[in-house]
């Protein structure tokens, strides 16, 4: 259900947990595009009607697994050409998905529709503090132009502090 007033869109949407189809939450959002200034990302105000599921346990398992690796994690082609992804790479993929959401938001206009197509390469960056840092090279698929756009992003993550895209 979408009503639009000029460049401002009002959206009613339902968020569904991709790992658990029965877990849904209703949201509403106001999105304001700035056609005058192409470099400005759209303003987004989001209201969540309810609570997002608690993921502390899975977060901590992933966090501890990465922290206890002897060598920094390096991987490529997630998923591979046949759509395969090892279970160990699932959280790496989900993290990229969340982070790419930020990149996509920053680069969206009324005429774009981006999806994360693939992680070409991911490299863990050693850190002294408690954060995990990953350097991703991803491919974004832009539906309207059908282009595949390579994008580099540096992602910080911590179970309590969430996701941050620093570059």
């Amino acid at each position, binding site marked *: 259900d979408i009503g639009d007033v000029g460049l401002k869109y009002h959206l009613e949407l339902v968020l569904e947990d991709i790992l658990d189809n029965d877990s849904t939450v209703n949201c509403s959002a106001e999105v304001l595009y700035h056609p005058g200034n192409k470099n400005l990302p759209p303003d987004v105000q989001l209201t969540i009607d309810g609570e997002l599921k608690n993921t502390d346990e899975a977060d901590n398992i992933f966090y501890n697994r990465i922290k206890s690796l002897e060598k920094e994690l390096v991987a490529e082609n997630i998923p591979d050409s046949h*759509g395969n992804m090892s279970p160990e790479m699932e959280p790496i993929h989900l993290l990229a998905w969340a982070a790419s959401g930020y990149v996509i938001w920053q680069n969206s206009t009324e005429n774009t529709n981006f*999806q994360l197509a693939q992680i070409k390469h991911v490299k863990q960056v050693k850190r002294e503090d408690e954060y995990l840092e990953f350097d991703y090279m991803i491919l974004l698929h832009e539906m309207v*132009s059908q*282009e595949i756009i390579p994008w580099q992003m540096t992602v910080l993550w911590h179970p309590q502090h969430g996701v941050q895209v620093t570059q």
Partner: protein
Amino acid sequence: HQVLRIKTRNEGEVKKLQVLESLEHLKLDFWINPSTSSLPVDVRIPANSIQAVKAFLESCGIEYSILIEDLQVVLDKEKQDMACGQQRERTRNTFNYGAYHSLDDIYAQLDNLASEFNNIVSKIRIGESYEKRPLYVLKFGTGGSNRPAIWLDAGIHSREWVTQASAIWIAQKIASDYGKDPSVTSLLNKMDIFLLPVANPDGYVFTHTKNRMWRKTRSKNRGSLCIGVDPNRNWDAGFGGPGASSNPCSDSYHGPSANSEVEVRSIVDFIKNHGNIQAFLTLHSYSQLLMYPYGYKCMEPADYAELDTVGKAAASSIRSLYGTTFKVGSICTTIYQASGGSIDWSYDYGIKYSFAFELRDTGRYGFLLPANQIIPTAEETWLGLKTIMEHVRDNPY
């Protein structure tokens, strides 16, 4: 060589086996590695380490049993079976429909289907690609001459792998259902089906060898280093209009002129020469959409009401199997304005029942749909196609 199955009762025993694993001079080959005491450990042991390993296990009180007494005997038999099996595969059709295949393997399977079901399936060559690969169409029919027919193609955009994979599954489904399924039987008794499983073979090979995300043809563009034309912007329908690019480096480049791509021209020539095509159906991925014209203009086609009804019925059939939802509508209102598309051409040419499918998924895996979703996708898509084909069969025009 022997293969032993070792049953550990506790973590201590697992740790002992991990020590064994680290002794490289024994040249042990673990088929199941020691990790937890709840799983057995299978290990292949070369002849001259057998004594040592058994002595170790016995002294630690670790239980084991002999899984394979002599591995060479098993291997010899397997080689024998495979040699016979290869002959059998050609006749018994053990093609794995739940996996993605190379162009060569798909083409080999087309031959298999044509020979296994030679009473209703024949293979036709309708032309060749830019790099001179054959364009093969399977014809499904029960005789007659120039019967009304249905056209179905897949893989015009090479990176959309689930479409070529679904097409070959659908081919074997149609062939094996004839004589068993009343609907398919009555359909083929009245009409022919022409199925082009790989409309863009050059692109398909390129996605296997060089770039999994390649979409276009592989033709050279005059005056540019960039290769390829978007074959679904190259049809003579609003050619060169909005929604297609004039830049050869773009993934939606329309090409120098309509039908410049031999892959497109071959289909156009076939359809025109046949003269009695009643439906034009094409498979793409991804987004889960079922669309009818127009793409090049945001105006309803004259047959909008009927096409929308049929489309919704097909989407309903698709949903009935696994709950997969498809949005139905015209190209322009459902995705975007796009000129030079195949179903716009076919519709304006007079083929009323023109539909384009965008198969699974909606973006989670996108083009990289896991192989374990091929068959479910093909199954549900077939139900949608069947609904449309039944309507075409029952509504000649």
